[in-house]
């Protein structure tokens, strides 16, 4: 469908206004909201993801594309809700207790939303109790934890332990990220995965929620 391709192209260019205009048009032309989302917005975002992976574009372009994505999403959400269509999945994110560095976590949140997930952002300085409670209450199957300080990394291990203690193993999985972390660390604490940048975090979530 031409209009949907046009939406994808506008999103790839990071053109907020155009995406909004074309999405409105697509809605008026009676395209199903889910189709506009999948074949217009998410299709465009997937291309952006590939270009980023290939080092053809960089973080600012990804963020501009995500902004354009929201412009379209804002128009579609009420329609999707009224049709009872759920989001792609829910993810709880936060920066761990004792740590205020939240920009990485914020970027992951933006990209997850851009990929169609519902993001519950607990902010920074989040305790294991708060992480697990939020997952339990919202039914989110994934908790994403971020840390920049090596001294706060132990909180991640305690959160994984708490998931077990609350009997949520299998229902809730934890993924981790942050500059001083590594795949080794994630494995050692029993996390389900480690993301070395925002986009790999999204890939991880896509894999876990499917």
């Amino acid at each position, binding site marked *: 469908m031409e209009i949907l391709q046009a939406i994808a192209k506008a999103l790839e260019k990071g053109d907020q206004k155009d995406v909004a205009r074309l999405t409105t048009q697509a809605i008026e032309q009676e395209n199903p909201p889910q189709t506009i989302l999948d074949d217009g917005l998410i299709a465009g975002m997937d291309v952006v993801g590939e270009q980023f992976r290939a*080092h053809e574009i*960089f*973080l*600012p372009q990804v963020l501009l594309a995500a902004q354009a994505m929201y412009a379209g999403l804002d128009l579609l959400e009420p329609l999707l809700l009224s049709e009872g269509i759920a989001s792609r999945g829910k993810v709880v994110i936060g920066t761990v207790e*004792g740590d*205020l*560095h939240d*920009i990485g976590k914020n970027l992951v949140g933006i990209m997850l939303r851009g990929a169609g997930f519902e993001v519950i952002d607990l902010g920074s*300085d989040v305790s294991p109790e708060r992480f697990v409670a939020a997952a339990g209450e919202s039914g989110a199957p994934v908790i994403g934890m971020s840390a920049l*300080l*090596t*001294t706060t990394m*132990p909180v991640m291990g305690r959160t994984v332990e708490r998931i077990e203690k609350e009997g949520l193993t299998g229902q809730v999985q934890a993924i981790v990220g942050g*500059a*001083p972390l590594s795949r080794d660390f994630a494995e050692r604490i029993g996390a389900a995965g480690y993301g070395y*940048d925002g986009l790999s975090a999204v890939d991880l979530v896509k894999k876990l929620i499917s």
Partner: protein
Amino acid sequence: MRPLLRLLSDELVERILDEARGILQNLGVEIHNEKAVSLLGDHGADVDRPKGRVRLPGDLVDRALATVPSGFALYDSTGEQTHDLSGNRVYFTPGSSAINILDLESGVMRRPVTADYVRYARLMGGLDHIASQSTAFIPTDVPDEVTDSYRLYLSLMFCSKPVVTGAFTIESFELMKNLQVAVRGSMEALQDKPLTIFSICPTAPLKWSEVTSQNLLDCAEYSIPVEYVSMPLAGFMSPVTLVGTLIQHTAETLSGVVLTQLKKPGAPALWGGSPAAFDIRYETTPMGAAETIMIDCAAAEIGKHLGLPTQAYSALSDAKLLDAQAGLETAMGAALSVLAGINSVSGPGMLDFESCQSLEKLVLDNEICGLALRLVEGIEPKDDFPAGELFNELLETGHLLIAGHTLTHLKGEHYLPSTVIDRANRSRWQEEGSLTLGERARLEVDRLVGEWQPVGLDPAVLTELTDLMETEARRYGLDRLPDRE
């Protein structure tokens, strides 16, 4: 004449200061520590408690600037003065808190253990151009809760140089203070002769965490010198322009000055920082970038303008190996930092965006520091006028190798590097094994560690230090401190 680098005109410095004050007055800083917030509120700051935002009026900043000292001294563990951190005097210190160490033989970066740290501390005694040690990396064979104090303990046990360090938690401060008091004999003696500097970092943009705010207050209370290490990332967590980043750095650092000076007027401090460019292509923070180095130097100019002694993270590299990039980035940073008159330059030994230390690189960087320090000694006449007699001698003898003038001045005038810097002609270099820089550095590490002399502390003091450390370690489940070999 002492050569001095200037990047900012006086007018630009003033404008940056004005703008920074405006930001502190109108936007304020976010402080996650109730004691700090109350202290500021009591002294006239405008506190928005629910948001944790504190706005600092101009007169509060002025008051703080009026009491902060224009310099302070550091002393080694035997009580000898080693530093006069004032004016344009420059000193180097290794980069601190690395999480990895480079194993040169295997080329692998790995997590360090106690034996690595002891080797490092022993090496530091032999590096003549690096005047202080730092708690350079984080040993992983002790509980997380004691890693900060344990580094300081090892440093004090194996090297007498003063220590640039820092605490990772609020609780650790007590032990780190007590270790120092044990060395000096009393708190009064410690305050008289500072032994450490604590690096304390705000979080960009314009935030102080609970731990870092408390560290500031605690250090100020006991007159333990601090260096405010603001770390804006240009284009990411601060404006992409250098001036914009300098405005943020100034605002964040001023807020630190206010906090310590309100707690204790006259508490010693360095106007410091570790700002950086942000490479959008790799999402990394290059410390070797021209922009990073320039922001460092310019930030120090602003600190000097305010009458404070200065510090910066410079003289280091983003390379993963001891290679040409490691050399060039470190040398650029070192040369420019000394020319800018930055009093304490933190960096030697560091690789991989301040995350990795290397003993071989430390040895190379010691040479870079020697070179840099010689640069700022400048050029002064030394029995050069009138020159007639000396030239007569040269023409008559045909050389000046053993002239009185040469014998008198050779040592003070020319810096002679160690064998790490290759100056042999090619034949000799080949004869001596065609050694690479890495191989030469490794030999030098071995040699200097082998020549280590015990620190001149009373055995009773050494015992007390160990008792203090063991007691703390036991609290967190470690019954016996790790082996040192």
